[in-house]
């Protein structure tokens, strides 16, 4: 991965005050930048990483699996690159995964496009636990429809896991032999399944090329066929006149005597400090980066961190505990082929049934298994190997046997369980650890709950039934994998009451009237699905409200 120093547009002039400053060019920040700039507002976005270089992605090269375990590993503590910030995870059961760059963590996501379901917005009403969202699935739907047209989603309409909707912008990707085998088991059991819906177009779309099924989605798509905002949003935003400053790491949001945000201080790659002034500030730095920045932005007026009068900034961290089931079959499934991406999904056990001994549920996604090193690994981590009491356990003749049996013959089911919010699961500022600019790093305190444990055990058992129903000759279970914190949610809760939430239903902080949070930090609950579709839809909803209400916006 070669760092690119190029900036997509010029940095803001010193002392220039813009209409909107966005911190973070991931999915939520990119949506906001495009749509705010489209109506003529002056927009600057600060991004600590760089514009991706597609040629740096290793998917076409023989060393792909080797570098996926280090340079392209989703865990920033494993990658340890200068633009990543370190995270203290010693008190966390799950390692957070993310990527610093334009497009944010979607650079390394699997592009499963799974909007939150109706019940996800009404958990308190339906199940008597956690919280309802301030709006419903139906309220969000128009924004989801619009985002899907910008993102270039592929899929088959009619999934009975969702209320009826229209078609997707591009036809479904082939589910391949992996998807057919996975579906076979569910079909025999009479359980729900559906061809995978992915943010990966099957035909060229909005600057994206068509997927070629290379199967290296999670280490960056060398074809430019996985939807990331550097391709689908930033060309439009820049054309609109938005400015994007890369290599810009924000260390503090500034506040004036009236309690209004006035902009942010950031550090460029040469270590120089800059001040970007703005009438409105939107934070889109993910469920860890956003509370980190707010907690770092202390002042006399906000001694416990910015917008933290509720004490909830950093609290209620949700990361979706995750288990995986590997099914191995006699048949040749060409299981290195993509997309990776989900070939099919299942929502058979998504909704609450209290008789199961836990609340809420999980979505399953069937994926391919990669190359020879993938016979024992999943997304760069060796998890499908047994214990190694002696060399012969995982090496020698056994290595050959395992690779021969599994390579090309495997289906990996990923199980994403809903993570219920708990105040004790949190992001703090580490007293000692810093990033490469000397800015204090975050520390996580996170325990997988009893509900999650029960949920995952139940789902793994059901998943094994499905894998065996399709004729598996071997199954391997990885219960609650540590390196699976792809989804960073909930640390600046959205709600109506300033005493129990950080932002209102439009993403505006209760404490600072011109400070907004548009990323998944604001999610009151986590759902049990991949959140990018909902993150981008919520960001568009909040952006539209900000635009409509801009004449009433309080400014510094």
């Amino acid at each position, binding site marked *: 991965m070669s760092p690119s120093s190029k900036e997509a547009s010029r940095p803001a002039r010193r002392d220039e005050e813009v209409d909107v400053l966005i911190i973070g060019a991931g999915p939520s920040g990119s949506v906001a930048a495009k749509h705010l700039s489209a109506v003529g507002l002056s927009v600057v976005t600060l991004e600590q990483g760089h514009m991706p270089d597609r040629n740096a992605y290793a998917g076409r090269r023989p060393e792909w699996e080797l570098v996926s375990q280090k340079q392209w590993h989703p865990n920033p503590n494993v990658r340890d690159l200068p633009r990543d910030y370190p995270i203290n995870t010693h008190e966390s059961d799950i390692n957070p995964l993310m990527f610093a760059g334009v497009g944010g963590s979607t650079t390394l996501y699997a592009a499963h496009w799974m909007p939150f379901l109706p019940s996800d917005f*009404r958990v308190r009403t339906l199940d008597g636990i956690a919280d309802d969202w301030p709006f419903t699935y139906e309220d969000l739907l128009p924004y989801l429809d619009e985002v899907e047209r910008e993102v270039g989603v592929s899929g088959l309409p009619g999934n009975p896991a969702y209320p009826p909707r229209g078609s997707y912008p591009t036809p479904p990707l082939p589910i391949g032999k992996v998807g057919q085998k996975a579906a076979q088991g569910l079909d025999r059991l009479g359980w729900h399944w559906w061809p995978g819906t992915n943010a990966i177009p099957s035909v060229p779309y909005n600057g994206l090329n068509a997927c070629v099924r290379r199967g290296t989605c999670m280490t960056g798509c060398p074809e430019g066929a996985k939807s990331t905002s550097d391709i689908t949003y930033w060309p439009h935003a820049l054309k609109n006149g938005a400015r994007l400053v890369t290599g810009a790491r924000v260390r503090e949001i500034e506040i004036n005597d009236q309690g209004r945000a006035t902009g942010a201080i950031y550090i460029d790659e040469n270590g120089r400090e800059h001040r970007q002034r703005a009438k409105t500030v939107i934070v889109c730095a993910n469920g860890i980066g956003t509370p980190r920045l707010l907690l770092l932005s202390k002042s006399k007026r906000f001694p416990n961190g910015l917008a933290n009068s509720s004490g909830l900034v950093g609290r209620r961290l949700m990361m979706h505990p995750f288990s995986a089931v590997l099914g191995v079959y006699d048949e040749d499934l060409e299981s290195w082929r993509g997309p990776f991406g989900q070939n099919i999904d299942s929502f058979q056990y998504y909704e609450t049934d209290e008789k199961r001994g836990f609340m809420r549920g999980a979505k399953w996604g069937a994926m391919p298994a990669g190359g020879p090193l993938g016979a024992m690994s999943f997304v760069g981590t060796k998890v499908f190997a047994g214990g190694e009491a002696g060399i012969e356990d995982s090496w020698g003749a056994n290595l050959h046997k395992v690779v021969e049996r599994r390579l090309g013959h495997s289906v990996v089911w990923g199980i994403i369980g809903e993570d219920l919010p708990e105040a004790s699961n949190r992001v703090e500022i580490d007293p000692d650890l810093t990033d490469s600019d000397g800015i204090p790093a975050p520390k996580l305190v996170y325990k997988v709950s009893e509900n999650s444990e029960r949920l995952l055990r139940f789902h793994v058992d059901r998943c094994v039934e499905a894998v065996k129903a399709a004729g598996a000759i071997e199954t391997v279970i990885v219960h609650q994998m540590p390196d699976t914190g792809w989804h960073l949610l909930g640390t600046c809760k959205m709600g109506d009451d300033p005493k129990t939430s950080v932002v209102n239903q439009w993403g505006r902080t209760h404490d600072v009237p011109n400070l907004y949070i548009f990323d998944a930090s604001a999610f009151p609950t986590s759902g049990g699905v991949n959140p990018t579709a909902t993150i981008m839809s919520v960001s568009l909803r909040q952006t539209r409200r900000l635009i409509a209400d801009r004449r009433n916006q309080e400014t510094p």
Partner: protein
Amino acid sequence: MSVTAAASLSPEQRSLFRALADVLIPAYGKMPAASAVGVHEALVDEVLKHRADIRDDLLRALQAAKGRDPTEAANDLLRNDEAAFNALGLAASGAYYMSPKVRELLLYPGQEDVKYDPYETPSYLVDGTIERVIARGRVYRPTPR
């Protein structure tokens, strides 16, 4: 990027790596031993080019194997120096599975691109499987009113 002389392994180190790699990846059935495809030659250089982070751990593993039976040395590393053993394992397996001969024997073409017709009717639409899913009805709970 080429491997510099300073970064490459010495002949002695290559010899040690060759012996240890054959303990981890011996010949079996149709599959050749690690040394038979040259993991200790250009392939290990290729591994270290892309994974310089494992170099120190690998060199420690090789140093520990000097003058010892390679099987004993490998087991000792597994028990007493996990980082060195993991570096050795990754270097051996990474090199082995990058070998074109090994990939040919495994019928693994690498992560290839695949041509397909996105407008072709998928089999699940005509063989009744999707119909059965739809017939079972919705599996979501609607928004309560």
